[in-house]
């Protein structure tokens, strides 16, 4: 043990490079004693930051003498710090020794504190930068799965998830952060220097808080897509930790909604909408409501032509359409959760209908996406057929009846475009089926709407007849091959093909009982003409 200072001193003198594997080097030079030993595994494992274990100096604990050993050990390191105070690389290497020292839980943070106090803030910061720089070069260098630069919110969120599966405590990242911050908290300005995977580990594993000050917020508009994506992913990650997002304000919301809409605001709104359907969102510590409110206000306060064109064109179907529908509904809330559809601003009606029409008009694009992507099984995503999807269907139904942008002919042409896919193999046919299910669900959503005028009801009848004359027959014949339709004793769970059929039957049953049943007479008679089975809505 007496030898420790000497051996370390000589080692630090002789090494002018940053040595992450310093413990492995030292293990051969320091004899193992009853108070100090080494833990080294020569195992390659690419969950480790360097593909191998960096090793630990293990300090004895649990007996009366141990505290004096720890004091001696930290005194030795502090003495070395003194000796090498002007040698940057040696200080970095001393810090790495501290990182790789294993003892009682709070010992390491005590040592880091002593070390930082000894060398002062400027040196600490510069060591922090050197270590982070080196890590961005070296870390997970060999692991192709991790070495990636997330480019959008989804990729960032995926990286956060991936961090969960890494050996996140293999390097004490929190101790590295302590070089520049007392808390696990960083100023946003430090963040771009930190490699994505370390950010992910810090946020996911160590709960790092990132703070944006007023100046950062003022500059949000100038940030790159990549950094905005990171910020949005960070917000999503911390939706239930209000203290991590104290800085979120209307100015941030405006920047995300107006300047960074396509890769920022849209992603955040849609995620919050999803979260709001979960029970967890009702917990008091949830951050959802204030952030959501800021985003909604930003939307409703900026409904200018330029922004409308930004928000309403190039919508991804159906995710973006759902997001926009919810934003529209939020602006026309009248009393608590009640909406008044007639308040939907005139200037967004046609553009919304047309935008959805445009996203459906090329079935081939949707089909190609489905049949070439092994992971996707559906285009219309009826999995999310809950209140959120229902809101979208209702808004669209209302606008189809009130706005003239989608004429009878347009709908008929669209139906014909999809009809030919009923003639194709399974995946393609499924897209045709989903299209009919979507159109039926939109039209059947009339049951959610009150106060329609006669001319609206006439238009509904006309639109329905376009469907019954074109795609209803092949849909009915194919749909009733499904056990959910023909078997009154159906016991299996709903899946992505039965779920829309369940809702169609539910709505048909309600329609049959409702005051709209008169205008739906032709629809019911056509269904009866085409089908063989007794459908669930009839039972």
């Amino acid at each position, binding site marked *: 043990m007496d030898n420790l200072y000497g051996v370390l001193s000589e080692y630090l003198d002789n090494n002018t490079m940053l040595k992450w594997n310093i413990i492995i080097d030292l293990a051969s030079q320091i004899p193992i004693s009853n108070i100090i030993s080494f833990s080294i595994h020569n195992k*390659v494992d*690419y969950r480790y930051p360097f*593909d191998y274990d960096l090793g630990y100096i293990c300090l004895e604990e649990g007996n009366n003498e141990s505290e004096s050993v720890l004091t001696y050990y930290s005194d030795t390191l502090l003495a070395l710090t003194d000796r090498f105070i002007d040698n940057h690389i040696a200080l970095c290497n001393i810090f790495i020794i501290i990182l790789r020292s294993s003892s009682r839980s709070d010992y390491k943070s005590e040592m880091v504190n002593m070390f930082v106090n000894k060398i002062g803030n400027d040196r600490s910061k510069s060591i922090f930068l050197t270590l982070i720089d080196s890590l961005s070069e070296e870390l997970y*260098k*060999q*692991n*192709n799965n991790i070495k990636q630069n997330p480019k959008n919110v989804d990729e960032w969120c995926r990286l956060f998830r991936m961090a969960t599966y890494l050996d996140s405590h293999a390097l004490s990242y929190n101790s590295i952060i302590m070089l520049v911050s007392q808390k696990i908290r960083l100023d946003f300005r430090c963040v771009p220097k930190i490699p994505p995977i370390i950010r992910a580990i810090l946020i996911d594993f160590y709960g790092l808080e990132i703070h944006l000050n007023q100046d950062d917020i003022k500059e949000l508009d100038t940030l790159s897509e990549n950094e905005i994506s990171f910020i949005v992913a960070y917000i999503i990650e911390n939706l239930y930790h209000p203290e991590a997002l104290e800085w979120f304000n209307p100015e941030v919301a405006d920047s995300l909604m107006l300047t960074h809409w396509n890769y920022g605001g849209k992603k955040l709104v849609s995620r919050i909408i999803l979260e709001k359907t979960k029970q967890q969102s009702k917990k008091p510590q949830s951050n959802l409501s204030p952030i959501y409110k800021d985003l909604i206000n930003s939307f409703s306060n900026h409904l200018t032509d330029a922004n409308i064109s930004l928000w309403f064109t190039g919508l991804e179907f159906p995710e973006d359409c759902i997001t926009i529908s919810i934003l529209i509904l939020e602006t026309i809330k009248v009393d608590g959760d009640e909406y008044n559809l007639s308040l939907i601003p005139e200037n967004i009606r046609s553009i919304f209908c047309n935008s959805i029409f445009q996203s459906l008009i090329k079935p*081939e694009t949707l*089909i*190609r*996406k489905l*049949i*070439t992507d092994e992971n996707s099984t559906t285009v219309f995503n009826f999995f999310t057929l809950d209140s959120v999807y229902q809101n979208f269907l209702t808004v669209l139904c209302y606008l189809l009846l009130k706005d003239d942008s989608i004429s009878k002919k347009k709908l008929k042409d669209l139906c014909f475009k999809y*009809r*030919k*896919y*009923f*003639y*194709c*193999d*399974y*995946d*393609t*046919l499924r897209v045709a089926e989903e299209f009919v299910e979507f159109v039926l669900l939109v039209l059947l959503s009339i049951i959610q709407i009150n106060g329609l005028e006669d001319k609206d009801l006439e238009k509904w009848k006309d639109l329905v007849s376009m469907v019954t004359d074109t795609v209803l*027959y*092949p849909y009915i*014949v*194919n749909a*009733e*091959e499904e*056990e959910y339709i*023909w*078997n*009154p*004793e159906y*016991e299996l769970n709903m899946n992505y093909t039965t779920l829309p059929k369940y809702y169609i039957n539910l709505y048909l049953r309600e329609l049959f009982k409702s005051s709209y049943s008169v205008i739906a007479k032709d629809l019911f008679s056509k269904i009866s*003409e*085409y*089908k*063989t*089975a*007794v459908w669930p809505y009839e039972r």
Partner: protein
Amino acid sequence: MKTAPNMNVLLLLTQKICNTKEEKLIFLFKKPINDYSESDSVYWFRNGNPIKLTGKLSINQRVAFCNDKEAESIFNSIIDENATDINGNKVIFQVPNVTRKEIRDPNLILSSVSYFCNVLNYYPIELQIKENCNLLCGYSIEYKNCIKPIGILPPLQFHTYIQSNQIAINLQRKKCISFRGAHTASVQGRGSKQIIGFVQESFDNKKKYIIKINNDADEFKGECAIDTSSGLFKVDLSDYIASGKLYYYINGKLNMCIDFSLVQDIVLNINIITNTMTDAYGRSYHRTNLSRDCMKPITWYKSNYISVNDAYKALSDIFYHLFSYLGPDIIIFDPYFIGNLPDNNATKDPITSPESQKAFINAIGITLFESVFTFKFTICGCPKRAKSQVTKDSGCELTIMEELYNKYQKYLNKLMPPYKLYPKYVNFFEVDDEFHNRYYFSKNIINGSTSLSKPIIITNSIGNLKEVDVIPVEDESQANMICSKYLSLLSAAKSINEVLNG
């Protein structure tokens, strides 16, 4: 269902013949569809004008939608009279000599009528390749000139038709009969005592519709009448059955028969996947047990593939199959080793490789990964010959071969971090004696003595492949001769590790 489906889709693929208005028939496909039309008219997609599928093959497509009667008439006129009317124009086809064959299910119900082409080498060679057929069927993001509407032909099915020389297929309309063993009457391991199901039919109240269930030995187990108001039937059986035959009779006449086996007692064998890898073409692999008992001769021509990427994907798969057949200890004799690796100018780092080398190395990577790094590759080359293929860096002090070996070493060790492939998994050996053939072998050590087996002839070197044949040597005496000669070369070969390090 008061209105029975009557629609069909007809797909017609032809090739234009120079200096004539006639078109060579490549493929004719008629499929009945669950749709209905009151009209007798034929709807030709894009007015029946031929739509070019790919410039390379000059194949044209036409698609028609029409009722049963019209579809039958068009199909027969093309096959029997070699002509049909398309939107008012008479189009004449060159139809090869064909043999008509009725395809029936095991219970002799007609499922399709197929016409088999009797002319040898009739199809364009490109259609023999599965990947090209998939592209034509639309299963690709990049390739837009596919058969429209997308999905009219399932991709693997198209290739199967072509491979079996079926030039025209007339599928027959089938009724939908769905059924299952009733949950309440089922016992695990024994089957069900009640079958519940549904027949989709335009029922006529004057007729009787009966479902009869027999067991595997075709012994009667139960029957019931179908409820014509819902198409529903419930057959109570005299015994538990797990599989058997379902017969559908209309007024006592057999209309359909289905062999069935109830799905039950399924135990999923879930292997927890600890690791997956993505190959050079973006495909994912999981760890499996590699072993293949046979290797068929394969021919690969780059030019036959519509997509170059598909071509090299297929080449990589050929090597991968070859390796899993030969493994775990694989000896490769190729005078040029794996060819030259171009330097990356900026760094002198051989990190780029020609596509065929990439395919080869990719196959090594997948094989190593899937075998959990239990495979080993020894590549023996002939420096006397290899030298001629390599350019020397003028400023370098190493010999031309040392330079090449260094490149191999760098290249291989960069590929699958953290595994350094060279020399533990892939090693190179120099052979002094000249040889020029290329063979792949499996190396075995039995009772301490080394032997080579399963010789495979490879007709070209890895360097920059445009075409290659893979031919397993089947004749025993020829195989023995090749193995003994190359075993002696292998024994005398020097590892390049020795060459580099003295």
